[in-house]
């Protein structure tokens, strides 16, 4: 493997390791938002990737199985960005609006043709994670202009 592939592999291993740590600790104990903040912090530490998280209206925890699915989805999206996008900046927003949770994930990478590559990069996987929650994923991307993933799903009060 050349040097950049090795670096990439390190980064991916790191994401997996952190995610594993978190799913047993932070995610379960403190909820999705703190877990995503930790994940972002770990990724921007020691790399040039800038990672922003904003949130609004998320009070307390969501149903645990849903938090885990959403965490895994973000993990998947980050893995895609690291692998394919050559991005400098990832931003995640979680907004709760009248019983609807909106998760917006954006990177400033190379983008892709949503018609062709959608299935190849694990997006099928994301859709199947969302299905039990009646969640919907809309992808906005094109070669040369970054990618935005918008996930919306209804939240029932616990």
């Amino acid at each position, binding site marked *: 493997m050349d040097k950049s592939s090795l670096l990439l592999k390190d980064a991916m291993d790191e994401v997996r390791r952190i995610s594993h*740590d978190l799913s047993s600790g932070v995610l379960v104990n403190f909820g999705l938002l703190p877990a995503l903040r930790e994940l972002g912090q770990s990724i921007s530490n020691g790399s040039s990737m800038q990672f922003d998280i904003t949130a*609004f209206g998320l009070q307390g925890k969501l149903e645990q199985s849903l938090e885990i699915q959403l965490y895994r989805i973000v993990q998947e999206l980050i893995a895609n960005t690291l692998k394919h996008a050559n991005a400098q900046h990832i931003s995640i927003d979680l907004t709760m*609006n*009248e019983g609807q949770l909106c998760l917006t994930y954006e990177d400033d990478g190379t983008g892709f043709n949503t018609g062709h590559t959608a299935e190849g990069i694990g997006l099928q996987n994301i859709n199947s994670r969302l299905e039990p929650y009646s969640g919907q994923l809309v992808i906005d991307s094109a070669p040369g202009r970054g990618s935005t993933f918008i996930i919306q799903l209804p939240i029932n009060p616990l």
Partner: protein
Amino acid sequence: MIRLYLAEDHQLFAEGLMALLSVHKDIDIIGHASNGVTALQQIDALQPDVCLIDINMPEMDGILLSEKLLKQNPKRKILILSTYSNPEFVRNLKTLGVRGFVLKSSGFDVLRKSILLLHEGAQWFEPEIEELLLAENFEPQDADRFTALSRRELEVLSLIGQGLTGNQMAEKLFLSTHTIETHRKNIQTKLGIRSTAALIKYANERGL
């Protein structure tokens, strides 16, 4: 002599700590477990003065253990050891009734001092985290709403302020109209402002 109980699953860390504490004669480790279930039983039996509890442990983690111990006896003096410096953790732990929080990256002196303080009935939380918590509490609500906006939402809000339509914004930012509308909806939710006229006014007042 302070009777300390240690719940910590990393053997090397636990042994190191016991060795360090054995030098000082003011703290005595009367028991040690590497998981929460055993710790719960032993703490109940031994009634230590202070419980030093690690967050990540097998079977029952430190948070659940603290919750159970404090339910049995709300006056129990619990000091949490953690590798995570997240203020939200500390806020949750304080709500539970935990009296202290020490980062594993801190030195032995800090840990020893915090054990002594807890034993005297005081509380001790890492100062850097306390500062973050205070900053969060004093932030006015309007600023909270504004800081909840993402970079992209600020950009969209600025364009709304310039009077651009959804289509114009989509073209300018190379985004779909669906993405623009989602940003607009989230901006409205975050700021608590519904009408476009009021959004334009807000953006201009903020100098966006």
